[in-house]
């Protein structure tokens, strides 16, 4: 008796293991879907100031510094020169700085760019879809995305020139 039982037991136990593993796994590894350090950077499709749609895939193979900002946010304004300086320093080494404006209209963004004098690419997240998929709550928030499209680190709050330089350096030469 019971020769056929073993395979059945194994099948049932492995189904339980599979489903249970999935359930426990998704509760341990952030079921909220927000990117963390080491997880894949969510893709986005946002309108640039040039009138074209830009996606994260365009920058595949490059290190990306993704900076979420708003013209009304003081620290965002203050960190712009640092971002511009680092953009100029690193752009020839496969680093791209992208500014994601949160929820403002084109005129505001254009005026702001003129005011703070930056020339790295800026996209507009008018529907706040990227804010949502990146789980951004306070501004500014900056994501450092490596060449493999993984989030290397996340910086919440104002960036300063030196630490920004260090973080980009780490991104380029891990």
């Amino acid at each position, binding site marked *: 008796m019971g020769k056929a039982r073993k395979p059945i037991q194994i099948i*049932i136990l492995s189904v339980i293991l599979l489903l249970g593993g999935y359930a426990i796994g998704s509760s341990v590894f952030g079921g909220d879907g927000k990117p963390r350090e080491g997880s894949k950077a969510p893709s986005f499709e946002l309108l640039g100031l040039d009138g074209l749609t830009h996606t994260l895939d365009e920058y595949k193979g490059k290190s990306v510094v993704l900076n979420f900002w708003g*013209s009304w946010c003081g620290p965002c304004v203050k960190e712009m020169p640092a971002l511009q300086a680092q953009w100029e320093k690193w752009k020839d080494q496969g680093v791209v700085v992208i500014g994601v404006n949160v929820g403002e209209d084109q005129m505001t963004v254009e005026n702001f760019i003129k005011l703070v004098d930056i020339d790295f690419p800026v996209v507009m997240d008018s529907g706040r879809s990227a804010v949502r998929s990146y789980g951004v709550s306070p501004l500014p928030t900056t994501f450092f995305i490596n060449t493999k499209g993984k989030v290397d680190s996340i910086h919440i709050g104002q960036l300063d020139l030196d630490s920004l330089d260090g973080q980009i350096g780490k991104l380029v030469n891990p």
Partner: protein
Amino acid sequence: MNRREPLVSNTKCECGHQNPVGTVLCEACGKPLDEKDRESADNLEMRYDGVARRSQRVNPGIIDLIWNFFSSVKIAIYLIVLTLLGSMLGTIFPQESTFLNIDASTYYKETYGTAGNIYYRLGLSHTYESWWFVTLLVMIGASLVICSLDRVLPLYKALTRQKIRKHRQFLTRQKVVLVTKVEEEPEVWVARLSEPLKKKGYRVKTDGGALLAEKHRFSRWGPYVIHIGLIIFLLAVLARGLPGLNMDQHLAFQQGEVTKIPDTTYYLKNEKFTVEFYTDDEMPEEFRGKKVLPKLYETKAVLYECTADCIDPSKEPKLSEVAVHDIRVNSPLSYKGLKAYQFDYDLTPVLRSVQPELVNSATGEGYGKFKLDMKNPQRTFQSGPYTLSLKEKYMDFGLNDEGQPVSKSPYPNAPAFLFLITGPDLPAEGQQYFYFPKQVDKEQFQQQAINDKLGGSGRFLELEVQGMSDVDFAESTSYLNIRVDRAMPFVWVGAGIVMLGLVLGFYWQHRRIWLNLENGELVLGGHTNKNWFGFRREIVSILYKVDVIVDEKSLDNGGGLA
């Protein structure tokens, strides 16, 4: 010498049947297999009809050990108790998921003090999503499946292969027992008894002077039906975590705006939001003048589905209307599993556009109005002979630390516009003009003074709004709770199956009567899983039909009756 129990006791019954390890009562004749049990006079252990559970075996391997762990009812009860205790922990303070906009890392400490901080740090602010709670649920699920399988299959086999003729000890050690004299031909008497038994709904099998009558066996499957329902329920709850099966978000819908519902292809337009309150006449005496009670919250909503150009932000999405509903409390808009519930509202008007007119303040002459949108406005406007080009725009006007004009937020709370006006009687390079559409801002920020400074004393142009018809604003904002829960039908199916199992198990009882008439002596044993009182009554009334008069109480063989 060796007083230890033999590892494998002899499981062959004297009736010749070979029983598997763990069998309590011989599968064929029902005689107790254990020597000590045979000497006892107590009621028999009738659980699962005394058959071995599947997991009971010699030399268990690693898989058997895991299997045996989960097949234990004791473990199942511990798991359930632990889960209950864990659930209780989650109710001490509100869970994080019940708040919309809090920073959990500070909220608990600020609201509940040190206890709140400990609560948050222990991860109890999200008890029901924690790994240990989910692990407990998974283990209960495993226990449900394995416990059921371990018992239902042997029980099924035992009940389908019942022998009619049972060992005398099996009969006399039931909870319902009758031993009496019947001076009649056994086969004739048994045949006579069959009639009233059948009338009572028993299925009767006879073998000479032996009889087995049984009814409502299906009620034994009740608990297993419940378990199947619970497993479906648990799987459905688990499936809610899969992408696309569950969504729960709270969104703001400004009146008159078509707003995208994130993560879907739907757009929703709030055409009008209304809130009504009970008038004093409608309220009971004690509430008058003291309470404000809402009577109605209603959002007239139109749901659109995007049919083309949905993702590309450089194109306008093409929308088609799919549903219209007046959303009220408990009356959500519902379309293909997507539900929009009334949740909150904000009656602060939000300015959308104004149509000011350029006026010559000296002559009173108007040059025609133009439409100035708060969001994505045109950059140049023509008003009579004058050209106004929009230079700066502030949604929430204010001054920063250095005294420069800035926008304090992206919301049009205090919009301000800086124009450069060119045209007749103005300097060639044009004249700057600051415009605050809202009257309160005009005064607060002293539009007049600013413009006098910018344009000098000879200034004669003003932007003025002629009437309220030239102002467009969203009167209110309605907050809706958008939900998708595609696993819900399965939750209901599971719950329905549980209910069915409960009904099966509770409203019917599995009743069995065995008897043997030999040498003028009738030995009757009866077993049921509940309602022994009713069972004994039924036996007495059946025996009465064949002129055997017995006292109901005399059938009671003791042993803790239900």
